[in-house]
């Protein structure tokens, strides 16, 4: 009886006059526009809870961040015979009971009883759970006000988020939007959209998400210090870097001295510190453009080709597959020869993408023997050559970006016509284009997807044409927004130790560059040079911005983003091993390679196994397309290895090595001069000289206490001095 009365109430309620209309309420609440955002804000549909891959949480499954409202509606309203909602008494709906923790809920209390969110959900249930009324508009865009601003340190800014709908109406959705700053050290955004700035100057962005749309708030936090005495601008890079610093009020450090520049540029461009002779010549050279001349000579040295081939080989997964297969050597050589000949970047990418044949006769094919499925291929290509991480979009709309599954499969379609045939060598296939129409299947909708570049219309590719060539053409078109940008950002990070977009392969609207004009200018410069890689290195290395000292001044120590001073970085594993060899006059023997081969010239990852030095200093295995696989952090094992390893001792004590040779020469002062110049590109300072001379003069005894033969003692002393220098930060770091 009571039930019937309740039912009558509901029926009569639906015939009653509608409640007074407010700006946010339509006659009928829509699941899509009104309820789904509440679930997203409350965190119900996060990847950790009910949007968990598989079957959600405890039998209740929602789509990630509400990207599939149709599915969510079915699960909430229809699943389990509608046990989750109770229109006759909405407040008794399981949905609300759980959300308010009135019934035991693993997620705890997500909304308060009586809150606006609660009332909207309850009314929606009472109205009969409409998915989307016929005339309900769909969301068209998301705006944030203000969109950008200059804030003082410790300041606050409340953001207002407005959703614009297809019928022109707007709604303030600040309460329900999600906020996240891209650098939590610089700013924090609260749940209600209040942005709190901390005390680091620079540029920070807050990403705002609502109902599948994203928007960004860009804040500039000036230091406000006086910026006078800027170094002389040498090219457009300086104009834009210093322009940014002036705007932010962060005075840059001075330009570094010749010793510092010599060592820094040699390591960054050619992968090895300069020799003693090169140091002496450079420091003695008085010509005004010697720094530019140095950059040119480094670019034409084989070290440049070796060092950058080493960088790209790891990213292109050049792993040793098997004994007896020279594919990894051939691939590395293809990279190195191409860099030496300065072949245009787009040509090399084209040859890689559209590679056909067998690996030894066409080395880029080796990439396809490592990256075997279309999913792996498109993810690698997107991250490496476009700076876009597509991995998430395989299964659902990318949470932080505008890419959908449709975009994902549109890219994968380019790789759908790759034919493989086995060869006599295990694990090596012959690659060719299989005749057929390039198409992929969207795993979600089961619909077929034609090949399409990101954000571009799809292509109709005839069955005889290799779709990978079409992709290569699209990527290297001068108007492509990703190709050039991702390369210059990557190379910027190589030289400046932090990308303009950071991480360097995560370019997205919600992760804006710290200096957008600079990034655009560099991309344009690269494209107009016809993708000349040496031109990129030239413009970066010749800029005054690259040549700033590492020592901060009294203002810019906190700046980690705007390049007001040089950010030091530890030498790479290969560079460090070569530097130790070069300093001590020793060499490392590598299997299958001629004596004297440098570590930066190693063709593949297999040498990590045989060289503890390389693996402990983080040389990557080539398992990932991310440069972060190379471990640049410091740890105790590294220190111990440099201090104690037999390998290092053997190098120090090599007969006819540097220690032995210096010990034979009697001019200690001159010897120390050579030692410091060879190791650190500078002369020893007076206190350093005195300490070292005193050390050399000390008498030495052996383990039994007998006085050591003077010749042996001298050699041991020089070995010790070399050892000490090798273990200094100044040697281990590029600064």
């Amino acid at each position, binding site marked *: 009886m009571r039930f019937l009365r309740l039912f009558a109430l509901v029926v009569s309620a639906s015939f009653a006059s509608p409640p007074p209309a407010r700006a946010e309420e339509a006659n009928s609440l829509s699941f899509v526009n009104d309820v789904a955002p509440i679930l997203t804000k409350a965190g119900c549909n996060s990847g950790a809870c009910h949007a968990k891959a598989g079957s959600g949480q405890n039998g209740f499954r929602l789509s990630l961040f509400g990207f599939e409202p149709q599915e969510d509606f079915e699960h909430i309203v229809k699943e389990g015979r509608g046990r989750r909602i109770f229109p006759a008494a909405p407040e008794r709906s399981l949905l609300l009971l759980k959300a308010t923790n009135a019934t035991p809920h693993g997620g705890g209390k997500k909304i308060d009883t009586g809150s606006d969110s609660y009332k909207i959900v309850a009314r929606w249930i009472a109205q009969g759970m409409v998915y989307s009324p016929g005339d309900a508009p769909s969301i068209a865009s998301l705006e944030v006000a203000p969109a950008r601003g200059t804030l003082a340190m410790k300041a606050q800014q409340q953001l207002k988020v407005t959703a614009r709908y297809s019928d022109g109406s707007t709604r303030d959705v600040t309460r329900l939007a999600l906020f996240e700053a891209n650098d939590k050290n610089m700013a924090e955004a609260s749940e209600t959209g209040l942005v709190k700035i901390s005390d680091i100057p620079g540029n920070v962005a807050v990403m705002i998400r609502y109902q599948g749309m994203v928007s960004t708030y860009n804040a500039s936090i000036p230091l406000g210090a006086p910026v006078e005495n800027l170094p002389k601008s040498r090219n457009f890079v300086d104009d834009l870097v210093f322009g940014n610093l002036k705007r932010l009020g962060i005075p840059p450090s001075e330009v570094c001295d010749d010793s510092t520049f010599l060592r820094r540029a040699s390591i960054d461009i050619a992968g090895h510190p300069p020799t003693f002779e090169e140091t002496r010549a450079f420091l003695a050279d008085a010509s005004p453009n010697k720094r530019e001349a140095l950059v040119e000579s480094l670019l034409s040295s084989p070290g440049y080709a070796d060092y950058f081939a080493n960088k790209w080989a790891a990213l292109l997964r050049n792993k040793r597959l098997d004994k007896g297969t020279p594919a990894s050597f051939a691939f590395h050589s293809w990279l190195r020869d191409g860099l030496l000949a300065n072949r245009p970047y787009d040509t090399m990418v084209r040859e890689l993408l559209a*590679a056909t044949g067998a690996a030894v006769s066409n080395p880029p094919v080796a990439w396809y023997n490592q990256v075997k499925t279309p999913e792996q291929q498109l993810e690698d290509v997107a991250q490496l050559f476009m700076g876009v991480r597509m991995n998430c979009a395989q299964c659902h709309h990318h949470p932080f970006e505008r890419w959908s599954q449709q975009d994902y499969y549109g890219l994968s379609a380019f790789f759908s016509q790759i034919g493989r045939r086995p060869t006599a060598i295990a694990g090596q296939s012959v690659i060719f284009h299989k005749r057929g129409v390039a198409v992929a299947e969207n795993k979600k909708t089961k619909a077929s997807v034609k090949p399409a570049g990101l954000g571009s219309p799809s292509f109709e590719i005839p069955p005889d044409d290799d779709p990978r060539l079409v992709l290569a053409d699209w990527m290297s078109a001068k108007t492509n927004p990703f190709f050039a940008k991702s390369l210059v950002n990557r190379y910027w990070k190589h030289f400046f130790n932090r990308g303009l977009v950071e991480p360097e392969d995560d370019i997205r609207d919600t992760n804006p560059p710290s200096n957008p004009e600079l990034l655009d200018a560099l991309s344009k410069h690269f494209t107009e040079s016809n993708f000349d890689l040496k031109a990129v290195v030239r413009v970066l290395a010749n800029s005054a911005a690259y040549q700033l000292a590492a020592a901060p001044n009294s203002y810019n120590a906190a700046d980690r983003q705007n390049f007001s001073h040089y950010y030091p970085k530890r030498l790479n594993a290969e560079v460090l091993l070569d530097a130790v060899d070069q300093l001590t006059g020793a060499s490392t023997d590598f299997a299958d390679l001629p004596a004297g081969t440098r570590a930066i010239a190693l063709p593949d990852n297999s040498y990590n196994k045989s060289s503890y030095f390389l693996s402990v200093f983080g040389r990557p295995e080539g398992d990932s397309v991310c440069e972060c696989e190379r471990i640049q952090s410091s740890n105790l094992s590294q220190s111990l290895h440099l201090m104690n390893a037999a390998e290092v001792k053997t190098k120090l004590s090599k007969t006819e090595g540097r220690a032995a040779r210096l010990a034979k020469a009697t001019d200690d002062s001159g010897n120390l001069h050579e030692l410091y110049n060879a190791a650190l590109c500078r002369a020893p300072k007076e206190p350093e000289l005195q300490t070292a001379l005193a050390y050399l003069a000390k008498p030495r005894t052996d383990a039994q206490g007998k006085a050591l033969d003077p010749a042996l003692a001298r050699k041991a002393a020089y070995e010790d001095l070399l050892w000490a220098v090798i273990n200094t930060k100044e040697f281990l770091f590029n600064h």
Partner: protein
Amino acid sequence: MLRPNLTAALLGAALLLPSGPAGAQLVILPAPRLLTMMPMGAQAGATLEVTIVGENIDEDPQLVFSSSKITAQPKMDAAGAVVKNQFVLKVAGDAPAGLVEARLMTRLGISSARCFTVGTLPEITRQKPNTSLETALPLASNSVCNAFTTSKSVDFYSFTASKGQRLLMDCATTGIDSRLTPVLIVTDAQGRDLLAERRTGFIDFNAPTDGKYFLKVHGLTYQGGQEHFYRLALTEIQKDKPVTRQASTLGVGSASLPTVDPTLTPWINEIEPNNSAAQAQKITLPCAIRGAFATAGDVDTYEFEAKKGEVWWVETVSSRLGLPTDPFVLVQKVTKSPKGETLTDVAELNDITSPVKLSSNGYAYDGVPYDVGSPDALGKFEVKEDGVYRLQIRDLFGGTRSDAGNIYQLLLRKASPDFSLVAWAMHMELRNGDRANLSKPIALRGGATMAFDVVALRKDGFDGDIELGVDNLPPGVTTTGLRIPAGKSQGTLLVTAAENAPRGVSIARVFGRAKINGTDTQRNCPTASMAWPVKDHTNEVPAPRLIADVPVSVGGSELAPLTITAGDQPVWEAAAGSKLKIPLKLLWRGDFSGGPVKLKPLGADFAALPAFDVPSKAASSELVIDLAVLKTQTGDYVLALHGGVVSKYSYNPGAVKTVEVQQQEADKKAAEAAAELQKLVDSVKTVPAEKAAETEAAAKAAAERMKAAEAAKTEAAKRMKTVTDTAAPKDIVDIVVSEAIHIRVKPAEAK
């Protein structure tokens, strides 16, 4: 067991026994192999010395060539003794340029082959190491250098060029049986890399300035050693002349190269541009087109008219010329309408697949080890309606490659049924984990039968029987061919040496005969072999190639471990549907290990015959053929049985006796020398003063002689140990094939 009439003095070991992984059983009885020759080429008209390295070749083999224009004599030292492994070659002035097979005739028979190039340019052999800039070997223009790389090293050559001069640097390696994958790098005078080539072994160099340049040669993975030899040719060439490379061997797939009479077929040249439909080159069929995949992604389009009912065959010749291409042919019908044109697919022609199952997983021998197919296309298309048709040809490997040297011939013809054949010594997995791919020269032991797989590539719908045969065999050697029946692609050849066959060698001719369109046609059958004896194919990639000729030899020094014959009758008759029992006679020589020998049939006609075991050392057995189960039709057949047998094999025990005699001689001489010295030493004390100096001098001389004699004694002892060790019996498993068994199936008896 040695033949008593052997004339060669057997001095003992200069040999290598095939050694499998330690502890594992050895496979394949020793066969002689020529491994390297340095130099591996010469200018026509030259006289030169070569050094060889071989396997199982013993002392003083003869060096023989497949061309009579080259003769070789063993090198003699000043004392008139033979210098081991060195020969003096004379190349006739009119020897044609190209490749020639070099082999050794040894105690065991004829060895495997090595390429020898007869060239037109003067040649040098690298003598001193040239592994640094300072020790670079100067290379004169228009000359060839023979050398081999050193492991983990680079070979340096220097040359001078003038600005604008065009020089070709061609490094022949895999094409002449070398294991080297070469890298060529041209550097400037300071040794800085200018140009690197790692794929083709060939650089077409235009000198940017006058001056000195260096050329670096090394292996792709810095491999080195005598087996990584190369011939480096430096030639000057005019600007627009086409490039010709040094001669090279052909892969197994090239056996199916068509013989196209240039006078009969109309030849057309490709006319670019012809990439798009609008630019299609108009042709009439039949014709033969010469074209090239010159630019990256090149598509060549040809248009022609055809009538309903026509059947046209298409064959591409490109990859089989040794080029790194993979031609793909697409034939479409063009229907023009006011709106544009519609294309309907008619045929897609891809690779020539192997007509028989290939060995999987590398060389597991669950199929044949050599691929008779190739990336070239061969197929037909049927014209269903009158109209205009378009044919597109492209290189599937050429999407990003521009090379004017990647030429093709496109043959369009009416059906011209034909076949090509390739033969090779049968391979079989002989034990668990057998990963050997050894070359198998036809060096027969007395009483042995060797089986050869013969694979036919049928063309243009030819489907008849193919009879196999061999001509010009040495005395004592007979052959039986097991035919390739209609519809099948594999047959067998048996080559048998009688137990008392004398030592000898001759160049045989293998052929196949069939009736094509009523005409008897005979086709030559080349053989394929491994360029290198690969002991473990998981570590090295086997390199098969076609061999120019087929020498068949009998060593005359050893007998086969097991001979299986079928009773006394020449032909075994039985009625269809009955059980045919054939007594088998087995002659076992020597000692054996392992259990019974499992015998299986050879030949398509009796493939379903079940295997059966023969106990070790059994003198006889019985082959039972149930014609009812096999459903064999009336007719004449040939059958053979094969299996694996493990014999206790002793390598060259005769050498032991000979060296023993020598050792005794040496011991005697040493003892005599010692005695003489002692006598002189004693006499020094007793002799008068004026004779003292003379005697002392004599004593010194005697001491020297004794030292030499002692050295010779140690040498002889060492040699004795070596021959004894190598002659120690070892278990070796090898294939045993019965002699041919001829069977006649008569009509079933009337009941």
